[in-house]
């Protein structure tokens, strides 16, 4: 399964939570333009897997590499190549949408202005509102705005469609298609059906 041109490679991964083994011997490689769609029942280990891929936690055994570097040992500039978006939005409730996104831009060293991404997300009227006052879906949209701003090569998305309406979902799928067409990679865990057209999909069932 592991190809020559894999940028992200997972070998013999074995993951435990508490006393339970979630999976063993998970092996796959992801080449440019490919997306790994992680599916499985509630509690199968999708989030746990994604956190390992992002370098947030370490697996009991196995090896996860991004450009031949172990993911939890990436040097800072390389870390900017990976973008992780989990169940939590990672927004400060007290700050406005624009302030939140500007913080993100500054920490990641992104130059693209925030405004370009607000309009397609339907957030342009809400730019100055504290995140605390947004509806659940609007908050998720604000979190997803990072996808529009970032130049990361690898997106790791955990249930990106939570709380989104149909239009929001289509928008994110569109972004994902564009991302893959540009030769980048993504790992997406979701209970929804992903509509990605012709993009190379790798199904990871847990």
């Amino acid at each position, binding site marked *: 399964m592991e190809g020559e041109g894999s940028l992200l490679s997972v070998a013999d991964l074995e993951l435990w939570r508490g006393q339970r083994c979630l999976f063993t011997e998970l092996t796959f490689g992801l080449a440019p333009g490919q997306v790994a769609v992680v599916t499985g029942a509630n509690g199968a280990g999708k989030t746990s897997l994604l956190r390992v891929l992002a370098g947030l936690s370490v697996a009991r055994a196995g090896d996860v590499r991004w450009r031949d570097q172990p993911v939890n040992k990436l040097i800072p500039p390389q870390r*900017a190549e990976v973008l992780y978006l989990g169940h*939590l939005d990672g927004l*400060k409730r007290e700050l406005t949408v624009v302030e939140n996104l500007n913080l993100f831009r*500054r*920490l990641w060293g992104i130059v693209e202005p925030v405004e370009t991404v607000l309009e397609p997300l339907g957030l342009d009227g809400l730019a100055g509102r504290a995140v605390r006052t947004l509806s659940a879906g609007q908050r998720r949209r604000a979190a997803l705005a990072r996808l529009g701003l970032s130049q990361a090569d690898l997106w790791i998305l955990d249930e990106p469609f939570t709380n989104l309406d149909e239009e929001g979902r289509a928008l994110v799928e569109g972004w994902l298609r564009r991302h893959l067409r540009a030769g980048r990679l993504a790992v997406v865990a979701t209970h929804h059906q992903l509509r990605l057209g012709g993009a190379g999909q790798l199904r990871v069932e847990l």
Partner: protein
Amino acid sequence: MLADLLNVIRRDLTIAFRHWSELVNPLVFFIIVATLFPLALSPDIAQLRDVGMGVLWVAALLSSILGLDGLFRSDTDDGSMEQLVLSPIPLSITVLGKTIAHWLVSGVPLVAVSPLVAMAFYLPMAAWDTLIIALLLATPTLSMLGAIGAALTVTLKRGGSILGLLILPLTGPVLIFGARATDLAAQGESPAGPLYLLAALAALAVSLGPLASAAALRVGLE
């Protein structure tokens, strides 16, 4: 590196200044605690003067540690900490920046207001400059220690009280040196010795503290 540090400081200051009350709070808290003490004591000026400095130091300690529980907790709860850990900025720089921001919001106003409190307790004028220098040297250490405690307890619910438990013993030396410096100055002697020791502790805390906090934070997220 420096730019990163400044970015983090700026981030946390933005968040802290969202409510103007955040800024004045530690300050008002400090003043109130310092003024409540005399209430609980018999009103005797001579006694007040003796007790004054001790009270000042403990009030400073408590008010700077009080705000620290939330230093990493709110970021962890809303997922911002994941983003900070994964950002291209080294985690120890992030921690340092956050702690500096906290110190700017809690430590500095405290130093600024200390002469007022000193006056209220009839501290001799001669000891004021020593008091200010000692507080300036002590508060960064307190903040750093508090940050370590906050990082250690970040995955625990209601860290507040256990945080006090972990951190307070370590603050003992800071308190002792700080109180001794002002004491010496009030008696007209040179406070250089304890001040040097305070400076040494501050250097130690600022250089090693962020590493310890970063390690603890990483474990917390795992």
